[in-house]
């Protein structure tokens, strides 16, 4: 079975989507899996990248939520792929999507997942499943804490469920994951992070409130 893991973050490196896929990959166990990894960080896809996707059985997208939806550069890539897959017409390819957002609640990602479903229909592909991830500001902790541990205790179950759907080529309802962490602390921690970041750029805390 050929599976494409597609990082849809515009960040060339250190993206949360990349970290999620890196951790998720370990759950796609089996002897006959061929994993192809791609990173769509630009608004167009190369012929080589298109070629790699053509003979895949499953496409697994992972991207950040931008303004309630799909980031615009990825939207352009999807449009390009829609034309390619529509012309392909025939073999059943399943689409799975992992969307992460910086808000606490994973439900914010629902609409981006719905759009990916709508894209699948347009491209003549079969919808598999979505995984909505909230508390995206904590995902950088995945470098040290593995799914199944600490605040990511429930992530292991979510990854297992999604991997199972992919490996059995089946479809299911969206899974929602939010780190096991209180919302008020997540809010406070996030705001402290912005204050630290602006100071590191030589500005003051109050500059976070600058108006043009």
């Amino acid at each position, binding site marked *: 079975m050929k599976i494409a893991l597609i990082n849809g973050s515009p960040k060339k490196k250190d993206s949360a989507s990349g970290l999620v896929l890196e951790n998720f990959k370990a759950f796609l166990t089996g002897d006959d899996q061929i994993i192809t990894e791609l990173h769509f960080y630009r608004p167009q896809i190369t012929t080589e990248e298109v070629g790699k996707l053509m003979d895949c059985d499953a496409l697994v997208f992972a991207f950040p939520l931008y303004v309630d939806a799909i980031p615009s550069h990825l939207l352009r890539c999807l449009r390009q792929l829609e034309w390619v897959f529509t012309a392909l017409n025939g073999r059943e390819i399943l689409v799975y999507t992992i969307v992460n957002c910086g808000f606490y609640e994973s439900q914010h990602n629902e609409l981006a997942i719905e759009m990916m479903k709508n894209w699948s229909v347009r491209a003549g592909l079969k919808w598999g499943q979505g995984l909505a991830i909230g508390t995206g500001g904590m995902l950088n902790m995945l470098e040290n804490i593995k799914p199944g541990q600490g605040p990511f205790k429930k992530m292991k179950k979510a990854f297992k469920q999604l991997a199972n759907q992919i490996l059995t080529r089946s479809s299911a309802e969206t899974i929602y994951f939010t780190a096991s962490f209180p919302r008020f602390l997540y809010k406070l921690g996030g705001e402290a992070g912005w204050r630290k970041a602006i100071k590191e*750029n030589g500005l003051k805390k109050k500059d976070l409130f600058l108006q*043009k």
Partner: protein
Amino acid sequence: MRLILCDLESADLHRLFPQPLDENGTILIKKDGKIHNCLGCFGCWVKTPGACVIRDQYGDMGEQLAKCSELLIISQCYYGGFSPFVKNVLDRSIPYIHPYFVIRNGRMHHRRRYKNHFPLQVWFYGEDISATEKQTAKKVVEANAINYDCQIYSVSFAPGITEMEGQF
């Protein structure tokens, strides 16, 4: 100030707006040269607060939204959302909001940077927008309205430019 964001080509734009727009205090954001996509760097919050660090002609969308009293978006419908150009401009508009969080309608959202409120009016066009895509699009605009803290919003659909003539 009325702000119009659209993905229309010049001829179609002229059909919908036969009178010069700048004469009645309207700012038009349209395809005009290359637009860079948002890089997810958050520089608009922590390096140049309130402005995008990419200094192309779409780098001051935060300021434009801060000055607007009415936002009209006209976009081709893509999978139940905006077209890549319109979405690109919206992605580049996050300097309008503040990185801090607030709880609105029971969920976490970003706090406002500015005090202005504007009604949001969206027109989606496309020959074959499916019923499912229309449902998604309505929910997307509602979500955008909550994020921008708009108190009034509307969503309309049209098969093409002709059907939108005389609407604005």
